[in-house]
């Protein structure tokens, strides 16, 4: 498992995808920061910053996940992994963790954006921590979605596009739910919405149920990936 993790990490930085991801992430996040938070002056609040960063994930995360399994399938290398003494769960977790490592470190790096807030304003650290933790977990969940999409195809582009679509769906699903008259559907959509659960964090409250919800999205999609591989093997 460690071997696969290391290989993926290496692959991010021998191909340029890793650099592209880091550069784009930092650029996009700082632009968003300038436009949303800094422009508010004294009353600066990070909530709209993190909300928009989450939207940027729809484009950024597929960069990390699109090739994870699609490329293995295209190059017929997955047979090497699947005939090695590693479990299916091990393979999938290793790849997920590699993507998560690159994502989380870049996200941590992007926190330099917040420095001006502490230098020139008074900040509610609790709100910031709440936002950081929840956005991190949302990213984690989206990576799992990307991993799943990548295992369905051998074409990286298809993997990327379906991931963008799935993430976008997760983000907007709750926005329009209030307009839906049919109550059961509204409840389901509200339940699935990543966004509605984000609200508490913006008050600086850690909402455990939301954290568990985000974590379970990750588990569900990783589990589905395992299932896809098992099914293919038994087909």
């Amino acid at each position, binding site marked *: 498992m*460690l*071997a*696969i993790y*290391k*290989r993926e990490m*290496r*692959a991010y930085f*021998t*191909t340029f995808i890793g650099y592209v991801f880091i550069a784009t992430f930092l650029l996009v996040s700082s632009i968003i920061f300038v436009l949303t938070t800094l422009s508010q002056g004294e009353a600066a609040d990070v909530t709209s910053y993190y909300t928009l960063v989450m939207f940027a994930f729809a484009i950024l995360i597929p960069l990390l996940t699109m090739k994870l399994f699609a490329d293995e399938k295209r*190059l*017929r*290398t*997955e*047979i*090497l*992994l*699947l*005939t*090695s*003494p*590693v*479990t299916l769960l091990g393979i999938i977790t290793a790849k997920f963790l590699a993507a998560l490592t690159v994502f989380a470190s870049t996200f941590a790096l992007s926190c330099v954006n917040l420095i001006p807030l502490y230098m020139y304003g008074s900040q509610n650290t609790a709100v910031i921590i709440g936002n950081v933790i929840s956005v991190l977990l949302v990213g984690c969940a989206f990576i799992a979605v990307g991993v799943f999409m990548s295992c369905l195809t051998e074409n990286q582009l298809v993997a990327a596009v379906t991931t963008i679509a799935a993430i976008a769906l997760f983000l907007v699903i709750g926005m329009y739910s209030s307009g839906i008259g049919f109550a059961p559907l509204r409840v389901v959509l509200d339940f699935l919405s990543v966004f509605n659960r984000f609200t508490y964090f913006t008050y600086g409250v850690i909402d455990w149920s939301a954290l568990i919800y985000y974590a379970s999205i990750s588990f569900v999609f990783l589990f589905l990936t395992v299932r896809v591989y098992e099914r293919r*093997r*038994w*087909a």
Partner: protein
Amino acid sequence: MIKIEHLTKYYGNNPAVNDISFSVGEGEVVGFLGPNGAGKSTTMNMLTGYLSSTSGKCLINGIDILENPSEAKRLIGFLPEQPPLYYDMTTREYLDFIFDLKRCTLNKREHIDEIIGIMGLGEMEKRLIGQLSKGFKQRVGIAGAIVSNPKILIFDEPTIGLDPRQIIEIRELIRTLSKDHTIILSTHILPEVQAVCDRIIIIDRGKLIADEKTDNINSLADENRRFTVQILAPKGEALTFLRKTEGAAKVDYLSSAKDGSSLFMIQCKKGYDLRRTLFYALAEKRWPILEMSTVGASLEDIFIALTK
């Protein structure tokens, strides 16, 4: 070492592998032979745990590949039909990766050096795999399979797509490896198995149709002797003459050369060997024999004989 019991695999309603049983002893080199689509790759993929079987068992050293995959897979080195190579890695990085992947406990540096030596990859160890020639890619694939010294090696069509010199090199390698490994290799080229294998297993449309020592394989085909003969003589007359010869079951005209000679394929009746008879008979007619050679059984012959 390897035991396959009633192995069956259905794709939908089509049996790709249908109730195959055989076993391979330690140190044996077994050729797995069959036309394209016979089920060779499917069998090998089940044997290595890549695919599951619909029913039946694959036992590797007594360990069921489906029940205890990690233990069983540790004993196997596998080269699939298309070598699983990461083109963005160098040869050494790739072999190091497989070393870690197989959780090998040997000394990494020494072991990989040794494999690079055996496979003749010394000059290629720092090159990206994507830039290597097909022959070298195949060698890197085999190198990957032998990392961690697994006792069993399974090669799916190891010489496919290589040029004749590379084919000979790979065969030599397999012969070297056969000294201390149990090997199963699949191919659809008969001379290849005859060159390296002790035993031949033939499958056709998912069924096992023969399991023989290599030395006996020719006897599987029609026992009747066949040979070609090139005679400097008028084509029509020669053909009529040959057909009239006693003991000739079938005479076919194959081709003519610029010097006026013609090439014929002669199949003898059972118990006849016409080579001497023809030598004297043609000498009498003053038709010189320019060339005469026996034709061994081809895979097609064996197939026709076995599926009759």
